[in-house]
């Protein structure tokens, strides 16, 4: 498949990212398998959590990503309030010298669904503080619009709950979000396999963020490559323009010149 990362790159906040597949880093069993999957994915942007330093850990995720030339997108995973998310984002900016943040404010520890009230509040504060905010949100078009209105550089609706692999449960809402959005829409969470990533792109998303579906796959590197191809196929199909759905058949071959006529 043609690599479209350079000819048709993902652009966020005026910055050329490249690949339309953004990778998560959680759930991998070793730095080596993470490296293999990241390389196979062709990603240019990977998200990392911000956690207390573990003095016994010697390997550095920052070094690993920078060694691969992959831009770091810190996230606020695990935050339940705007206050915690804002502090985490500010720490990340200082730690990784980037003002980009994947804003995540969780509202329920069983479903890990985002809290839209705290999310918009945190987004507003971070935008005011000069951050490029990429919020993980539900698939509610109204919330997506509010996030864009407060200045987010993208919106990242879920397809289904984090790590569920249930795919895109409400494609129509994703289409509505895409249709109204003036910023890139990134399908974040719920992807289970390559066809889900393909569908997200066919619906008009600008990119897909995948973590669990790759890191917990039987062969993470092979799944990462499948996701890369799924995203590329879906993007190409979107640009190509699909046919209109019809209720009944329409013959693709002419009846002219048929035998017996």
């Amino acid at each position, binding site marked *: 498949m043609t690599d479209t990362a350079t000819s048709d790159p993902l652009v966020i906040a005026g910055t050329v990212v490249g690949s339309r597949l953004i990778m*998560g*880093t*959680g*759930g*991998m069993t070793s730095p080596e398998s*993470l490296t293999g999957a990241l390389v196979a994915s062709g990603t240019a942007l990977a*998200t*990392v*959590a*911000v*956690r*207390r*330093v573990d*003095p016994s850990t*010697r390997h*550095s*995720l*920052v*070094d690993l*990503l920078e060694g691969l030339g992959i831009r*770091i997108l*810190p*996230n*606020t*995973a*695990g935050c339940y309030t705007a206050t915690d998310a804002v*502090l*985490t984002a*500010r*720490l*990340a*900016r*200082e*730690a*990784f010298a980037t003002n980009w943040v*994947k804003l*995540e404010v969780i509202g329920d520890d069983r479903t890990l669904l985002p809290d839209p009230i705290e999310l918009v509040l945190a987004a507003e504060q971070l935008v005011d503080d000069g951050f490029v905010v990429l919020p993980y949100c539900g698939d509610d078009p109204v919330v997506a619009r509010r996030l864009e209105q407060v200045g987010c550089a993208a919106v990242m609706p879920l397809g289904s709950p984090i790590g569920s692999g249930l795919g895109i449960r409400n494609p129509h809402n994703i289409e509505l979000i895409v249709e109204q959005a003036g910023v890139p829409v990134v399908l974040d969470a719920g992807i289970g396999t390559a066809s889900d990533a393909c569908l997200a792109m066919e619906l008009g998303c600008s990119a897909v963020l995948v*973590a669990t579906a790759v890191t917990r796959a039987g062969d993470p590197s092979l799944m990462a490559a499948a996701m890369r191809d799924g995203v590329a196929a879906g993007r190409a199909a979107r640009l190509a323009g699909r046919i209109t759905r019809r209720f009944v058949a329409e013959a693709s071959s002419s009846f002219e010149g048929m035998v017996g006529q």
Partner: protein
Amino acid sequence: MTRSEDDGTTGPVADAPLTAPGPAPALATAVATVNGEPYDLYPGSTVSDLVAAWCPSPRGVAVAIDSEVVPRSTWNATRIEPGVTIEIVTAAAGG
């Protein structure tokens, strides 16, 4: 945790102060909380001392004192006051 460098003090390495300034033995004079654990402070303890003691490298590390981020450029000059709550964070897989 291991000592980042020999400061001339004696005693069990595991319990030795990590941020004692200078060659003279120093006694902990106060305590702060670092990543949820009590942390002995010595006269003049700075954020730089703390980071050197906790992290193999300061790259990719950030520090907050009482929920305020301490800019890297001020680590050397920022003394740690008794009783403060400090968070030292870095990148971890996830999200």
